[in-house]
């Protein structure tokens, strides 16, 4: 029997349903960060589609120079580190950010629960930088918080608290955030504030 071209004939019908880039170059971003980079808790890789390009670029730079993701306790962070280094070394950091920007961003399903009313109160400390709707503020170098991987927000707040992030002097904005995190005394406060952020649209 002559073998048919399996994709075009053998397997029902194959439809080309869209195109996002000129090749597979950055597909490995989707490996960790999931389809359309909407995040994958399975390997603790947050949603990065829909995130401000200037913020992505800065974080990639931080990873590349080791200002973020180097402490041994931050296992997901130091998995990202080498990727930042690679993008910087290849000179493709901006192209990667552009690639992410073209993806189909979806609001992730909430996974964190907490006392929303208490979280709302705590969030008052966040408003001036991150905005009342968690929309972020580029001039203040504050990224949006709404419609992000909520478990990732928790992880990062804990990381700031533990000094796993924002402790490197080259990460100036991280250091600012680290100081503010002192207003969230414990893990309950953190999940409460993230539960509130989950309500922001």
């Amino acid at each position, binding site marked *: 029997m002559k073998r048919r071209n399996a994709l075009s004939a053998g*397997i029902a019908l194959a439809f080309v349903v869209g195109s996002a880039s000129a090749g*597979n170059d950055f597909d490995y971003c989707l490996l960790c960060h999931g389809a359309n980079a909407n995040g994958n808790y399975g*390997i603790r890789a947050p949603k990065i589609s829909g995130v401000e390009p200037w913020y992505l670029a800065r974080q990639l730079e931080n990873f590349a120079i080791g200002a973020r993701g180097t402490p041994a306790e931050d296992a997901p962070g*130091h998995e990202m580190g080498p990727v930042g280094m*690679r993008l910087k070394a290849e000179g493709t950091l901006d192209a990667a950010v552009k690639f992410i920007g073209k993806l189909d961003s979806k609001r992730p399903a909430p996974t964190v629960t907490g006392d929303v009313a208490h979280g709302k109160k705590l969030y008052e400390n966040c408003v001036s930088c991150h905005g009342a709707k968690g929309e972020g503020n580029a001039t203040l170098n504050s990224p949006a918080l709404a419609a992000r991987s909520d478990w990732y927000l928790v992880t990062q707040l804990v990381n700031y608290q533990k000094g796993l992030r924002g402790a490197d002097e080259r990460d100036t904005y991280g250091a600012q955030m680290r100081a503010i995190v002192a207003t969230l005394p414990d893990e309950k406060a953190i999940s409460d504030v993230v539960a509130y952020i989950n309500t922001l649209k």
Partner: protein
Amino acid sequence: MGSVPIFGIAAVQRRRQVKLHNRSESLVDPFALAHYLYAQDNKIKPPIGGQYMTNKLSRRGFLNLAGAFGGSTTVYRAALALGLLPAIAHAERPELGTLKKPKKVLVLGAGISGLTAAYELSRKGYDVQVLEASFRAGGRNMTVRNGDRIDETGFPQVCNFDKDPDLYFNCGPARIPGHHKALLNYCKELGVELAPFINDNRLAWVQDDAMFGGKPVRAREYMTDSRGFVAELMSKSLAPEQFAAPMTKDDYDRLREYLKYLGSLDPSFKYLGSSNAGLAVHDYTNPDVLKKPLDGRELLKSRFMAIMSFGETDDQAAMMMEPVGGMDRVPAGFLRKIGHLVQLESQVQSIKVLTKGVEVTYRRNGEYIRVKADYVLNCIPMQLLAGIENNFPKEFVAGLTAIPRGKLFKIGFQMKERFWEKEGIYGGISWTLQDIQQLWYPAHGINRQKGVMLGAYTFDPNAGEKFARLAPADRFKLAIAQGEKIHPGYGSYVESGVSVAWHQMNHMLGCAAQWDEELWKKWFKTLQTPQGSHYLMGDQVSYHPGWQEGAMASAHHAIADIDARERAAGAVAT
């Protein structure tokens, strides 16, 4: 790749350190400790009441202790006899019926389970297509040679070994035991030539900074002398009245006799050394001279006791095999038959289970392509599948993220000279309690000038992470510094290296799924049960993760189920 759950050294080591310090150093304690650690490693329930050392030992309790020190098999069998371990039904290679009319099957992933299923189904009237995300097929069955790419997300590498059929490195699986019937049958059927693999070499080294100031000793010396020490100790300290159950004098004498042989004791039950530890010199024109036994207490300082029986475990005991020319001869054998069914560089982005069939969308050259099939056999690693758009039930998705991923790490070095052969080491493994954990010496190419040896194989995920966050050159530096403690001058032989951090490899981000008893109980059925016509497959959905045999068992399980469905629907020709 070694099965981590059986030798879950990683987590156990951390517990062990605590336990070691908590316990007094009385002469008897090490037995109890060894048993305790052994039982933990092998998930054997502790004796009732959790008492490891009491004044009265039951007979079984004693034999368990002896077994814990002498080798795993004794205790393993005892545990089976007590019903402490589940009996696992062997999944035979299924006899599939031939379809009257083709059914479309989409296999996601061209690793061992995917290739196995595709090979079987395509011969029985199924219209099979395999989508593989990577630029290569084989999955974690990966052998690198001159010029091969190592596709790590952050640190992509190229293998710079000399072009030579013996200079290759098995990055994933590297050995096959004789009872892995499915794999061995496929090797035969696909013309994959096999050769003996040396897994256990008593002339190899054991090194632990905790004993003898870090100086390595030969494995046979450690094993013989520690057994001698322990057997002498036990034969001296045991009396019939110590046993809870009545013990006759004959029983007691037989027990002592056993200890005598176990520990190579002399007629007065003293351990004065044994040729099993290796002679002091091999001068066959003069009488044999035994080595002076090593200090028993020093030997017991090493946690090597937990690894000592490695070469006796179910999957690691002689006789082991390897394909001639590299483990990837296995996928190559499959590809000779069904290579035309495999499409590379196709990364799945979405899976939708339909009332009838399954719809899959994948990315290829920047395009999103949607396909439909009657069945989908999904071998995508769970940790990646969790990030792919899907309409699986909540419970199923929860399972995908509940099983931790493996973080094994390996280094292969091309050595300009097979220096280990000058030390009498031909194949096998040296063990160290340092990060690198193992050095493997190739069983092929003996007596040739150069060889590729394994310079690190970490079971401890912390060690895996430690290496993974370094750039390859620094990984090699660290591995060489640690290897020097076993072979002085080690680094001077290194010509080039490759490193594989499985949890950072593209399209993998992990290896052997880290199941444990609780996780198995809670999630295995959920993940193994098909969602409509969608089957999760791979060694990750087997009770033998980290082994090709586990991958094949899972493939056989899935295709047998499909076969049953087709038979029930009357779609199979009689």
